[in-house]
């Protein structure tokens, strides 16, 4: 049933966010540490559990697939609720700092990608 997929997804997210909050607590940081990442790993593990015959039913998969397909619209809504006005009226210093940080980080990607390439080839 579709709801099984949605419930599985919800379970993974809640467990992940809970563990991320706990991790932040333990590290003495006022932030969630890796909650979404933990949730993603959990979803991968749980959805691959068991043998081939115990695979998720197509309907269960639909419950997850729907939210995966809603990703772009949700991100568009996310863009529409950003505090863009305050970003642009924060003055030149904030803009220069943001632009410089992003440019440097972009430039770093090929360097690190090259470094971590090692023996595996997944291009």
């Amino acid at each position, binding site marked *: 049933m579709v709801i099984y997929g949605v419930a599985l*997804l919800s379970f993974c*997210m809640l467990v992940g966010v809970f563990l*991320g909050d706990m991790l*932040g607590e333990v590290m003495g*940081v*006022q*932030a*969630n*540490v*890796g*909650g*979404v*990442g933990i949730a*993603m790993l959990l979803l*991968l593990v749980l959805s*691959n559990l068991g043998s081939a015959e115990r695979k998720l039913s197509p309907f269960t*998969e639909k419950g*997850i*697939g*729907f*939210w995966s397909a*809603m*990703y*772009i*619209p*949700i*991100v*568009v*809504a*996310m*863009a*529409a*609720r*950003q*505090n*863009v*006005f*305050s*970003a642009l009226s*924060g003055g030149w*210093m*904030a*803009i*220069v*700092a*943001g*632009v*410089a*940080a*992003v440019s440097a*980080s972009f430039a*770093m*990607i*090929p360097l*690190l*990608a090259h*470094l*971590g390439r090692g023996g*595996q080839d*997944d291009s």
Partner: protein
Amino acid sequence: MILETLENVLASNGLITAFMFVGALVWLSYLISAKLTRGQVHGSAIAIALGLVLAWWGGFTTGGSRGLSDIPLLAGVGVLGGSMFRDFAIVATAFGADVRALKGAGAVGALSIVIGVLLSFVIGAVVAVSFGYTDPVAVTTIGAGAATYIVGPVTGTALGASSEVIALSVAAGLTKSVLVMIGTPFVAPHIGLNNAHSALIYGGLMGTTSGVAGGLAATDPKLVPYGAMTATFYTGAGCLLAPSILYFVVELFL
């Protein structure tokens, strides 16, 4: 009377209104992509850019901090685009992701997060100094803001920075996140951002969850789980490093 009823219906069914509104926005964006750019600029990139423009307009007209969703009729956009649904959808994209590539995140992912935090922090701090800030607390807070707009205020609060400096750090982080959303699809071909491996590194270096979520959506949604995986640890790492070791180092220099 008709208008009043309509307004009531739209406002009291906020999330549903948001579905319709975002659907229309996405449709318009794909139309622009196909007709005006002949598919050169991806529809989702246009949709995100339009979203940001509307967010600016929302902030400009209402004076609020949640973009378009501060307009009462479109409050549902704030729910749909809030961190709850955003994280839910990000987790859903992991379904069907390449487990091997995600497991391989380990070393290179951790390295890219640490380098990402340090790089953004140092650049933010240098910009702060070059704009005349000499107080270590202010410089650290602004540097932290250049990491993400959460690391900035967390660091500023921990160090006792002034609210004006904290606001600047948030503005720096917001600029970063907006720029990552808009810039990624244009930069992607030049930096080799087209596979799981480089997406992992991209997430770790950029760190802003919203920026990475938007940037990868506009570039290639298949890369989302890999970028999100590393980005999700970035803010935590920043909150750990900035008010402690990095503040100490800044104090040594100033």
